[in-house]
């Protein structure tokens, strides 16, 4: 057989793979959206004066970060029903991946928040700003630029981790390529195409993130 590339097969399977790409993008987008919000909640929860809360959130984050994503996906999907939590592949996949990346992002946020000089907090206190305004209007806008690079890395990271959802049958790129492969006994073309599609999306995304970072810095008046 050897490495014999078949173009006719390539064109034949391409539409199906592009269709699946949409699912991959949706999974990455939804997962990242969950992670962005939940990560901020985790980061802020660790800064409250309530010791019980800060300790348990910190431990939970540490736990999620130290265990494999694929295990967490399996857990939600296969162990969930035993505990009365019957979730579709999509829902359990999104929860697992969102939670996993929220833990990573909370550390990125934490780093950004800690990078804001103490004097900014003091100025906010001296102006009598509420805690909410201090975070929303003074601290978070300044914590954002240094956090953006890390946030961008995890956007590409979550995108590249979506194939793990194939293990519970989410019809994203990897899962579709596997199906095509087993239906036709040809794996070279689908897997190569999957690699190319990932590459073509990842590379420009990384570039766009850098541009966005520059734009945000300029927008906030920081050089």
């Amino acid at each position, binding site marked *: 057989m050897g490495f014999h590339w078949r173009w006719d097969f390539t064109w034949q399977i391409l539409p199906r793979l592009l269709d699946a790409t949409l699912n991959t993008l949706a999974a990455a987008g939804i997962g990242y959206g969950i992670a962005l919000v939940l990560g901020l909640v985790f980061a802020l929860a660790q800064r409250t004066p309530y010791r019980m809360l800060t300790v348990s959130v910190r431990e939970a984050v540490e736990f999620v970060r130290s265990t494999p994503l694929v295990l967490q996906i399996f857990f939600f999907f296969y162990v969930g029903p035993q505990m009365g939590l019957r979730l579709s592949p999509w829902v359990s996949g999104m929860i697992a991946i969102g939670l996993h990346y929220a833990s990573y992002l909370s550390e990125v946020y934490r780093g950004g928040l800690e990078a804001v000089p103490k004097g*900014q907090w*003091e*100025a906010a*206190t001296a*102006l*009598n700003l509420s805690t909410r305004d201090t975070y929303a209007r003074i601290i978070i*806008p*300044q914590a954002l630029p240094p956090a953006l690079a890390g946030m961008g890395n995890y956007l590409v990271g979550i995108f590249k981790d979506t194939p793990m959802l194939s293990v519970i049958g989410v019809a994203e790129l990897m899962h579709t390529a596997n199906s095509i492969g087993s239906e036709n006994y040809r794996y070279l073309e689908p897997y190569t195409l999957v690699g190319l599609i990932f590459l073509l999306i990842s590379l420009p995304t990384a570039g766009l993130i850098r541009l966005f970072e520059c734009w945000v810095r300029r927008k906030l*008046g*920081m050089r």
Partner: protein
Amino acid sequence: MDETADYPLELTGEDVPMVRFLNVTKRYGPLTVLDKLNLDVAEGEMVSVIGPSGSGKTTVLRMLMTLETINGGVIYVDGKPLTHMPKGGRLVPADPRYLRRMRANIGMCFQHFNLFPHMTALQNCMEGPVQVLGLPKAEARARSEELLEMVGMIDKKDQHPSRLSGGQQQRVAIARALAMRPKVMLFDEVTSALDPEVIGEVTNVIRKLVAEFKLTMLMVTHQMGFARDISDRVCFFYAGRIEEQGPPDALFGNPQRERTQQFLSAVKDAG
């Protein structure tokens, strides 16, 4: 620990000071920074605080701005307790809501300006009036522009702090603090981080404030000449206590205590 329970719930009578430190103690771990400090500042008075570093002088301002908690005694502002609040006929440590209400009386300028870097000069000044005082934007803008005009920064109002020199940033910071209309203004070494040639533009603004506003002011400074010119009273701090205080001409011209003399001659030699 419960000694403050017997302190007055508020100050009444003829000459209620704008600020009163009553037996105020501040400790960092085993280190006592301020030991039973008693200090009154009258309404409209300009008091300068001088002394060697580590004497607790900056801590006095930071406690008054509620940036530091205190370990003993009570601070009163405008006759009402600041660090404590009345509850059931006695004083208990102030809760955040009470602190927030009382803090509105006080404004502060910092050594390193602490302007918000993501906002223009004008936005820095409008932030407090709009978000805290709830002024309509137009009114906050008018008030801020008036103050920026007074500190000579109106033509830079749309610049971000990173585009401004230290002296310019400090002048914006003064306008920002004034925009909240505080009764007491605190200046914490506001010229210490500045290049020598721009110190004058900041001290001139403070001179103008003293001349035109009837504000109560407390200033920590290393500039003895400026303190002498401008203050109604100068307090010399040493090892967490007021070693000597008095009118500037008396304290600088004829210091009574040995430590004051040593400090002033050391400063003179250095300058």
